[in-house]
């Protein structure tokens, strides 16, 4: 990671202890080597649960009190993008970092927390190579990287040769000697070497697993596979909820559960009636256990925005309310954590798995036996019709309820598109999802504003003691949200017109007649 003026330091990877032994015996003995020191550093590498830094070709590490964000090369750590000195424990969220780093991390991490992904211990034995005047002409160090602790397993061993300005000839001679020992230069970073030796490379994580379906598969098999995949995804989020790492674990858990419920609703009749009812009930229960905690997470994440909506003199009036929310959140979190480690939960998961198992072995129902492509066509057309029918009835004075209904219909259409994506032309799916997303974002905003107004109202009216300043602040918030909602209501009408164009209709038709990408 060091540079000199004229030539860069070179790293020579050592394959194993044998090679090091051979090298020590011949080369290191023949060179006029002087041991000048030995250092041991602890270097911590960080990333988020879905490896957002790694997949954006970034790496963040801490060496002593210095935090460094670098670009990742193919196998190396490339140039520094931002760095900062910190003291105490490492920050976890982008907003806790010093400015230079925060700015870089914000778009990568969003709401995710960073966690240590590798504790590296680098032991460097440093040697000097001197000429007949005893002047140093090149430096050489033997670097050994241990995992987890100072004497932990070795995952990278290398010689690093460092030239000195003005002594290039001596450096070239040293390089020739190392090359004669069949050593190869490498730019491999400790992080890459760690993944290479452990064989565990970062796995992308998505709350919505992409399924590869075949058009002739029975719809029962598809539904069972899709439920299993989403349940597995949800379960991957459990450790993060138990350790309370960030709010995205719960969010992704809920996304998985909700998509299962949507699939069960959309593909009703595909499973036997009894199984379907049981599954619907079980997943509705899992979902509802997380509702309150998610709401509180959202309020607390929105705290800065709420405060910003108020005039300065009212801003502190909300402190008590957020304090309440924090307390409630901790209580809700504990409740959920207890549930997730309970026997009831383990049992429930086993039940779900056995129901699915049984359903996939029995003779399928009539719709369950149909090829998935037929069901996909039917369901998509029907849901698309529902969306356009409702949307076309919208006007500027539409009731909140109608907008709410449109939001739900759009959401179901989206789930269907995502579930069946692999059956159609990817480009058409992508375009339709994109068109839908714009509309959905605005509908979502509208809904959030309704829910928040209602819950702020409830929070205040359910208080035992009146607090006039809090009342004023909440009144101001509700007023301001209501106003925003009026603006958004107008936007919804316009956005729907943008969505419901000839182009979109043609796109939908194209989608219905398209074939999957040839793999």
């Amino acid at each position, binding site marked *: 990671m060091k540079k000199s*003026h004229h030539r860069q330091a070179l790293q020579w990877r050592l394959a194993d202890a044998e090679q090091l032994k051979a090298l020590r015996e011949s080369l290191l003995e023949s060179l006029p080597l002087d041991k000048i020191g030995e250092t041991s550093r602890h270097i911590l590498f960080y990333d988020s649960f879905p490896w957002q830094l790694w997949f954006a070709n970034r790496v963040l590490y801490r060496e002593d009190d210095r935090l460094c964000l670098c670009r990742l090369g193919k196998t190396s750590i490339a140039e520094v993008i931002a760095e900062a000195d910190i003291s105490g424990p490492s920050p976890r969220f982008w907003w806790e970092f010093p400015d230079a780093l925060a700015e870089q991390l914000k778009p990568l991490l969003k709401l995710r927390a960073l966690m240590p992904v590798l504790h590296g211990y680098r032991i460097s034995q440093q040697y000097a190579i001197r000429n007949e005047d*005893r*002047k*140093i002409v090149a430096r050489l160090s033997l670097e050994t990287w241990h995992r987890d602790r100072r004497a932990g397993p070795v995952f990278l061993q290398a010689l690093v040769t460092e030239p000195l*300005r*003005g*002594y290039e000839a001596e450096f070239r001679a040293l390089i020739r000697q190392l090359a004669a020992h069949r050593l190869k230069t490498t730019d491999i970073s400790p992080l890459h070497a760690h993944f290479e030796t452990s064989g565990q490379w970062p796995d992308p994580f998505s709350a919505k697993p992409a399924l590869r379906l075949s058009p002739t598969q029975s719809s029962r098999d598809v539904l069972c596979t899709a439920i299993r995949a989403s349940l597995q995804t949800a379960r991957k989020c459990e450790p993060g909820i138990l350790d309370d790492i960030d709010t995205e674990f719960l969010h992704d858990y809920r996304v998985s559960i909700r998509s299962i419920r949507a699939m069960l609703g959309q593909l009703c009749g595909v499973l036997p009636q009894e199984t379907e009812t049981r599954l619907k009930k079980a997943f509705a229960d899992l979902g509802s256990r997380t509702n309150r905690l998610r709401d509180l997470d959202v309020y607390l994440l929105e705290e800065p925005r709420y405060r910003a909506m108020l005039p300065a003199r009212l801003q502190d009036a909300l402190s008590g309310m957020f304090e309440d929310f924090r307390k409630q959140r901790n209580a809700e979190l504990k409740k959920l954590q207890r549930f997730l480690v309970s026997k009831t939960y383990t049992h429930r998961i086993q039940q779900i798995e056995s129901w699915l198992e049984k359903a996939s072995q029995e003779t399928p129902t009539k719709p369950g036996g149909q090829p998935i492509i037929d069901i996909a066509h039917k369901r998509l057309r029907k849901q698309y019709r529902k969306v356009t029918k409702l949307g076309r009835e919208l006007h500027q004075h539409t009731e909140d309820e109608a907008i709410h209904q449109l939001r739900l219909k759009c959401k179901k259409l989206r789930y269907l598109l995502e579930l069946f994506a692999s059956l159609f032309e990817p480009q058409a799916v992508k375009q339709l999802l994109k068109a839908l997303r714009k509309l959905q974002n605005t509908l979502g905003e509208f809904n959030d504003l309704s829910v928040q107004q209602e819950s702020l109202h409830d929070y205040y009216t359910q208080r035992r003691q009146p607090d006039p300043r809090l009342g004023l602040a909440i009144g101001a918030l509700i007023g301001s949200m209501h106003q925003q909602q009026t603006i958004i209501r107008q936007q919804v009408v316009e956005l729907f017109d943008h969505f419901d164009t000839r182009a979109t209709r043609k796109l939908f038709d194209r989608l219905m007649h398209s074939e999957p990408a040839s793999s």
Partner: protein
Amino acid sequence: MKTIASYSIKGGVGKTAFSVNMAYAAAEAGMRTLLVDLDPQGASSFYFRVRPSEKLKARGFFDRPASLEKNIRGSDYGRLDILPANLHYRKFDARLGLMQKPNSRLKKALKRLSRQYEVVILDCPPNIGLLSENVFVAADVIVVPVIPTTLSERTFVQLLKFFADANYPLDHIRAFFSMAQTNNRLHRDTMARMREKYPAFLDTVIPQSIDVERMGIMREPVLAYAPKHSGAQAYRKLCEELLTRTGMK
């Protein structure tokens, strides 16, 4: 980039000892430092075990920036490089005499290095001529070691007069007492008198010390081989005082 010259008309006053330790201290304090040995005897190069730059002649030094850079050598210490001297340097004055704008050639030659280094230390030969004038133009600070004796005082006054006559900025001159014997009454009195008269003197005094003299045998700055000894401590204090007073730290 700041340029600090170690200069005196008189020889044997501790110029090289100051240059070598100042360069070491600046690098140690985190500054990318270049020590330029301008003295054809090459004493500061010798202290760092760097051989003379045989190929760099007086002409190349001022006319061929690439050949100057090629002769820079990394020292054994981080952030510290050396541009060694050689015997061709004795022709500096003759060479400069043939050039246009002969007083600012050194400044121009050093300007190219300003991206690579934060501090440049010039170890100058003991005389007063065209090369010295180049030093006066190029340096931000001219540090003069003065042994507290009558003869040294005389040469110091000569330098001040030369500066005044030639209109060089007098406030660039900083002096310090070198090789001072604290148990020598004459030294003590001279120091007290000169301090009163010339405000250019730094507070730190470098005592006559066997540790400093051993630099020739050790071929290392005293700060490197005996960092705890009084001689080394005095240099560290002097370097800090200079960096603070000149606003570099």
